[in-house]
């Protein structure tokens, strides 16, 4: 009797499993919660979670809650690829948000294309990243466009900018491309006299030799291409050696926390970001809630990074796609629904906290840009540029 009851219970549980599996709509999420991108990557996790919670609290999508299945790449491109395959093959997700960086996305997008699954990297802004990808789309703005906006604001201002030197981190994918190709091309096009780009390495801590070379020409501006920690070392060394001009940079180190990291030496720095928390009420609400949740987790942030805002919007973009295609999340329809979601990206227009009526040229979103000035220990808006129109 006892054995029969046990067997019947087991059969009942097994029978119920597919029902449980189909009760949610599964979305993959590759994050960088460890490794060298941990500090910028882990906060995006909170942004994803806030969006999913808001959507589920409001009734979910197509009557079902979103289930975010997370994989930590450890900031390693190979692990990002492993994560993509795991989420696609083992977890049957309909689409993937992430991986975080351009380096990781460059590898993982191959998996997305191979298995025909929509992938939206979180912070990948390397130029041309999605050019060859059929299933990779970006809700991030290209470095060259954003840096061009900063140069436009600079040339419109009375800040001296006739001569410039470029310092770039040679062993970082995006910084290398920005420092050796984007910055020189765009700055020359803006009529700025530019010296030969000067490399530094990510692990270098002493920039005195590079800065001594810069001080020989004492340019009006120094453009830095590197993550905040590298930019900070360059800026501090510049000030130590008596440099008084402006330091500029693209999105790569446009993190509100640089205000604290750079300290007084960072005053006057100009960067360009893809998010301004005061843009709309929804953007302000997100920023406030985001900071409050991070504080509860013991993570210190001075404001949402544009990658956090883009992570949040990425979830809502998928929601829009899911509603448009009417996906069910049922396991027997996974391939069909993945294809529907990827196809629905064509011609989509999206409203989010990063911008309104966001459209895509190729597979890259057209987003507004905000030129930020670090002044008086504050993250202030220096200028802004609207999103380009989609032809």
């Amino acid at each position, binding site marked *: 009797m006892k054995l029969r009851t046990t067997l019947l219970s087991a059969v009942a549980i097994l029978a119920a499993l597919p029902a449980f599996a189909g009760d949610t709509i599964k979305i993959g999420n590759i994050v960088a919660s460890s490794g060298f991108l*941990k500090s910028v990557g882990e906060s995006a996790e909170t942004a994803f979670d806030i969006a999913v919670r808001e959507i589920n609290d409001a009734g979910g999508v197509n009557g079902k809650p979103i289930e975010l299945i997370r994989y930590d790449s450890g900031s390693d491109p190979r692990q990002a690829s492993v994560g993509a395959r795991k989420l696609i093959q083992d977890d049957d997700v309909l689409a993937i948000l992430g991986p975080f960086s351009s380096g990781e996305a460059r590898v993982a997008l191959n998996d997305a294309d191979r298995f025909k699954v929509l992938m939206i990297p979180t912070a990948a802004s390397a130029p041309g990243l999605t050019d060859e990808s059929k299933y990779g789309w970006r809700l991030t703005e290209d470095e060259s466009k954003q840096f061009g906006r900063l140069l436009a604001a600079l040339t419109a201002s009375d800040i001296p900018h006739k001569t410039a030197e470029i310092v770039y981190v040679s062993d970082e994918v995006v910084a290398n491309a920005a420092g050796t190709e984007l910055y020189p091309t765009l700055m020359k096009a803006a009529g700025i006299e530019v010296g030969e780009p000067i490399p530094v390495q990510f*692990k*270098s801590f002493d920039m005195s*030799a*590079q800065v001594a070379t810069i001080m020989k020409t004492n340019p009006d501006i120094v453009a830095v291409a590197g993550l*905040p920690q590298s930019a900070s070392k360059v800026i*501090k060394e510049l000030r*130590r050696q008596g440099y008084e001009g402006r330091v500029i940079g693209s999105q790569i180190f446009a993190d509100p926390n640089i205000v604290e990291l750079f300290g007084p030496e960072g005053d006057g720095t100009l960067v360009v970001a893809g998010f301004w928390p005061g843009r709309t009420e929804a953007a302000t609400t997100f920023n406030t809630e985001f900071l409050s949740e991070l504080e509860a987790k013991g993570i210190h942030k001075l404001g949402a990074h544009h990658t956090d805002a883009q992570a949040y919007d990425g979830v809502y973009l998928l929601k829009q796609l899911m509603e448009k295609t009417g996906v069910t999340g049922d396991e027997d329809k996974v391939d069909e629904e993945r294809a529907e979601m990827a196809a629905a990206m064509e011609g989509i227009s999206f409203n989010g906290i990063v911008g309104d009526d966001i459209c895509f040229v190729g597979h890259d979103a057209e987003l507004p840009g905000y030129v930020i000035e670090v002044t008086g220990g504050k993250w202030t808006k220096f200028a802004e540029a609207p999103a380009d129109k989609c032809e």
Partner: protein
Amino acid sequence: MLLVQQIVNGLMLGSVYVTVAVAFTLTISILNFLNFTIPTLFMVAGMVSWGLAYFGLPFGLSGPLAWPAALACGAVASILCSLLVERFTFRYMRTRHGDSTEHAIPLVSSLGFLLILENLIRIFYGSDSQRFPGPSSDLTTQIGGIFVRIPQLVSFVIVMVLILGLVWMMKHTRIGRGLRAIAENPDAATILGVEPNKIVPVVFMLTGLLCGLAGALFAVNYGEVSPMMGEDIGSKAIAGMVVGGLGSLWGAVAGGIIVGLVEMLTIHFFGADAVQVAVWGALLVTLLMRPQGLFGHNAIGKGKL
């Protein structure tokens, strides 16, 4: 003039490597043990100092008193970690597996300590660089048109005084004689009454002190600390130690400065991407032409102090 500036920059950078290279030299000379935790001890000093200065010292100091006290605590943390390494790698492994000069197992376990400590710091503080709230970074002076950082100059003097003290201690004190006896022949030293369990921790304490001091001075000089701050310095200090000659304290000093100079001059002439090739190339050339290093002895790992 620019070249002279780069040479001065190289000397200043070399002084950072010197302290860590001397720490490596101490353990390898006396214990024949390449202590891989040294870069982490350096990092622990910096990160603990930052943590205390940033989140507040437990004993209520504030203002200009806070950061020197925090640095002192960071150095103490480095010494304590070093003693922990001695207890759970070197001493434990020797007790369980025999001869203390069989350094392979302590070497591997010290590598384990390096990874554990570094990742614990990353878990607690994240992987970001952190601004150290020390003295203003514009403490720079110009001597004949050459920029010199005052904290770095002071650091260099402190390090030289410390090494002179260390050399004096090794030659003229009972502890120094005991350490040299262990370096010469641990078994004979034990028979003659030297107690390794009491004397070996001194090596680790000195190692912790050197790393703690180096980490603290680094935080003041560069105004920043990070969980990865020991990686580059550790590898360059090893290069400096080998170039200078294994087991020679003054060799480590010369090697550290040579590596600093090679690094800065390489950046000046060829760019930062060529630094690793130049530094490790210089090491290989030194080993080919003079395997014992510039100031080392032929009997590597034994009795050179």
